[in-house]
């Protein structure tokens, strides 16, 4: 019975010129955005890899110089781009691509793509994610808004009931029909998508992530199908059903995301960049607790070293006191950075958590978070890289300071290290986090979407159980 109804629904949908046209447009947009972003992402992946190699080559081939000069010359780390960010660019355009790893500072990332773009980009990028989050729900609305209202308006609902068709079967048949119509676009899009992505020979196509993404979107579409049918079953006329659904769509896709990220920001405010930098500087100079200023720390270190080596002046130390003091300074600033960046990251997490809760009101928010996470383009992925880069920076600077400490005497800034030292320091190799890690960050959204799925299906059964025929 369910299948018969589904087939009838599907045939009707396919005969509808409006559906054919809009489905065609959506498919074209989907493929066009897929292809253009793929071109951009694959060149970007290659260029970042090349730049990374170039940076390493420059590091190895640098002239002989004082290790501290080398520490200031530093190393640029280029954030690798996930191939799947072709589908969902996430926050990549707003987080910067490269960071200079050098002595003393935990630098911020430079060059955000969005800052280079025209104001028109703020209308939204043309990515597969936008098409799937905004346009496909519209297509679902278009297909399903009159599913029940039309039956009622034409009087066929009465007929169906008199035939003794169980209402929940009717509902699921219709659901299947609408979903089936949708699959006619999604299946070719998915296949072409995977073919395009697989073209990226050495650029690791991850079928598991791709599969997870398809799964997440299917659940999201199912929620919309059920939701549209619920409204159609309850609405008094097709026109009312359409207006209500469009209202819900607008509220979920435009108002809710903007509103809740704003509320998250107001609830968990961030310091201004200037305040943040000022606090970091103060803590480095005056000590984290405010009672341990930099010069006092240096004096203590001096006393300790003199005692340890049993000499009475830093000049007589067998090691370079300046280098050791610099390393001590590095370790102290690392603590300060950990404290402040830790606080900052916690704030961001609180904002993200708050925002994810809003998924209860708008499944668009949930799918957005999930989709970015799976595509590897969310803020957590960015921070994962930033943390790894910072670890590398600390290792790099430590190696250079210790070399200077053990191979030169205090006050000797003329000491020069060479290729042997540069080669001793390994290249920065970054391993991207796993899919499980990515999903764990947005577990909240995953659960909320699951609840939406169950709730909308239950809602569908309930709403047709006492459907009015007039």
């Amino acid at each position, binding site marked *: 019975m369910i299948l018969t109804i589904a087939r009838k629904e599907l045939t009707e949908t396919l005969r509808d010129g409006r559906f054919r046209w*809009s489905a065609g*447009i959506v498919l074209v*947009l989907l493929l066009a*955005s897929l292809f*253009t972003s793929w*071109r*951009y992402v694959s060149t*970007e992946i290659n*260029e970042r890899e*090349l*730049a990374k190699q*170039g*940076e390493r080559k*420059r590091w190895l081939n640098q*002239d002989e110089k004082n290790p501290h000069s080398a520490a200031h010359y530093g190393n*640029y780390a*280029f954030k690798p781009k996930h191939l799947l960010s072709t589908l969902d660019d996430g*926050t990549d355009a*707003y*987080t910067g691509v*490269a960071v200079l790893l050098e002595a003393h500072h935990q630098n911020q990332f*430079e*060059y*955000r793509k*969005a*800052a*280079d*773009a*025209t*104001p*028109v*980009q*703020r*209308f939204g990028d*043309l990515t597969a994610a*936008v098409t799937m989050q905004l*346009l496909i729900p*519209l297509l679902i609305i*278009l297909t399903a808004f009159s599913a029940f209202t039309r039956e009622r308006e034409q009087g066929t609902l009465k007929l169906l009931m008199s035939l003794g068709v169980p209402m929940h079967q009717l509902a699921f048949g219709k659901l299947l029909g609408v979903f089936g119509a949708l699959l006619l676009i999604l299946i070719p899009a998915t296949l072409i998508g995977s073919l395009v992505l697989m073209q990226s020979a050495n650029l690791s196509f991850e079928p598991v992530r791709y599969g997870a993404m398809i799964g997440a979107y299917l659940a999201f579409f199912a929620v919309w199908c059920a939701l549209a049918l619920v409204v159609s079953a309850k609405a008094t006329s*097709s*026109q009312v059903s*359409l207006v209500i659904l469009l209202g819900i769509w607008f509220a979920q896709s*435009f*108002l809710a995301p*903007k509103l809740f*990220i*704003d509320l*998250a*920001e*107001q609830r968990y405010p*961030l310091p*201004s*960049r200037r*305040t*943040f930098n000022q606090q970091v500087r103060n803590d480095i100079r005056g000590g984290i607790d405010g009672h341990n200023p930099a010069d006092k720390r240096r004096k203590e270190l001096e006393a300790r070293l003199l005692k340890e080596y049993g000499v009475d002046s830093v000049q007589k130390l067998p090691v370079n006191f300046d280098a050791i003091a610099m390393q001590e300074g590095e370790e102290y600033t690392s603590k300060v950075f950990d404290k402040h960046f830790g606080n*900052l990251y916690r704030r*961001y997490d609180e*904002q993200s958590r708050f925002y994810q809760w809003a998924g209860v009101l708008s499944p668009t928010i949930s799918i957005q978070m999930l989709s970015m996470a799976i595509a590897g383009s969310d*803020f957590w992925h*960015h921070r994962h890289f930033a943390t790894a880069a910072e670890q590398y920076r600390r290792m790099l600077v430590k190696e250079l300071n210790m070399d200077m400490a053990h191979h030169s005497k205090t006050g000797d800034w003329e000491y020069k290290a060479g290729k042997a030292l540069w080669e001793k320091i390994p290249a920065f190799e970054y391993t991207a986090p796993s899919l499980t890690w990515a999903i764990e960050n947005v577990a909240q959204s995953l659960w909320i979407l699951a609840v939406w799925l169950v709730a909308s299906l239950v809602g569908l059964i309930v709403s047709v159980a006492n459907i009015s025929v007039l």
Partner: protein
Amino acid sequence: MVFATVALYAIYNGREAIQREQASLLRDAHQRKAFLDSLEQVAKKEEAKLVSLQKPLEPPAWGARHPYFANMRAASTATLPILNLSALSIGQSDLHIKERLIRLDSEQESFEQDESDLRHPLKLKLGEFDFAFVIIYLFPLLILALLFSVMSGEKESGVLSLFGVQPVSLFEIAKRKLLLRAAVLFGVAEVLVLIGVLWSDARLEAGVGRVVLLMLAVLVYGMFWVALVWFVLSFGKSPAVNALILGACWIALLIVLPSALNGLAEMFYPLPSRVKYVDAMREASVEAERRSAKLLEQFYQAHPELAKDTLARDRDFAIKNLLAMEEVLKSVQPVRETFHVRRAQQAEFLKRVQWLSPAIVMKQALNTIVGTSEERYAEFMRQARAFHQQWRRLFEPLIFQRKAFTNYTALPEFQFQEEPIAEIAQRSFSLLMLILIPTGLLTLGAFIRFKTYSIVL
């Protein structure tokens, strides 16, 4: 009601964002002056010490009188002031770098470096919930929702054919009903504009001219959507079909077209990768460092009068730095050049096609009027660059000639010259024309169709 509430929230929200930005950009002129005075005091002390030791003052040793040192310590900033009115349309200004470091090496080091505020990147991606958003997205929806059934109701109930008997033209009936409802909506929108203006810029510091332009822009944008409804109605379809057509127009003009056009601009004129830029910059700086000894040699060959003092020659890392810097800038110039050319081409392309979507035009117009436009930002960059040149002209000759810097108290400060209102008005008018022309065409089309409107279905 909902519309007004959302609009008021948006105004409040934009105002918060702008005040936050303004607070973070606030520079205390007195503090700056006190700081420069204290540097002058330090310099005087150092001088006194040299005099007491009977050492020469020039060439200056590394210290407060050394021009390179002075340039580093007294480094200036060029700040783009934010207008209070900007709260109504944030535009790209949340991504703009409104504060530029002015120092000899700043062009090399932080040319495009970000000093913008700490924000959740998702927030930036989703965009500001400001008044412009309400006007561009929600206002048309409201117009469509309230006007699309203005005609069809009467047609279905048969009252229309009754009207046909009366000596009033059908065109007149449609027009009056539509205009009445539209006038109410426009009234609400304009009142909201006024509230927005007074709430965010109570003292009208941005000038009355901008307020008038703002109200005009909202009116013109609203007129376009009313004309669109009117045109669609003139086909005499059922209300459901009208609703679908109008909804499709909204989606096409606000979502599909802007992102597609921007995508096309990026496809036709791709910006050279920033990664490549960093790469080139690093390569160039290694090269320049390697050649710095040679560069210095060449410099002294060209300026033999400066080469005599061998002690200073050994120490003259400042000259070496400047020469290396120039070298780096010269070699990354082509990458930069391509970048700016392509970026200009993107903007040019969008300018040529923006008439396709009045939403794009409206956004540009609002940004222009409230002072968050690309043009204003570009003007700031131009002025900041000019100020940087002035800074260089001040310090570089001193460094090259090894003269002491004695001018702390007379250092120039950057002051942004606001775009003249006439220019803003002119740019806004030409943008609004791009909305008025399709509005006129739609109205004309509707007029012609209404003449042949069928009374009986």
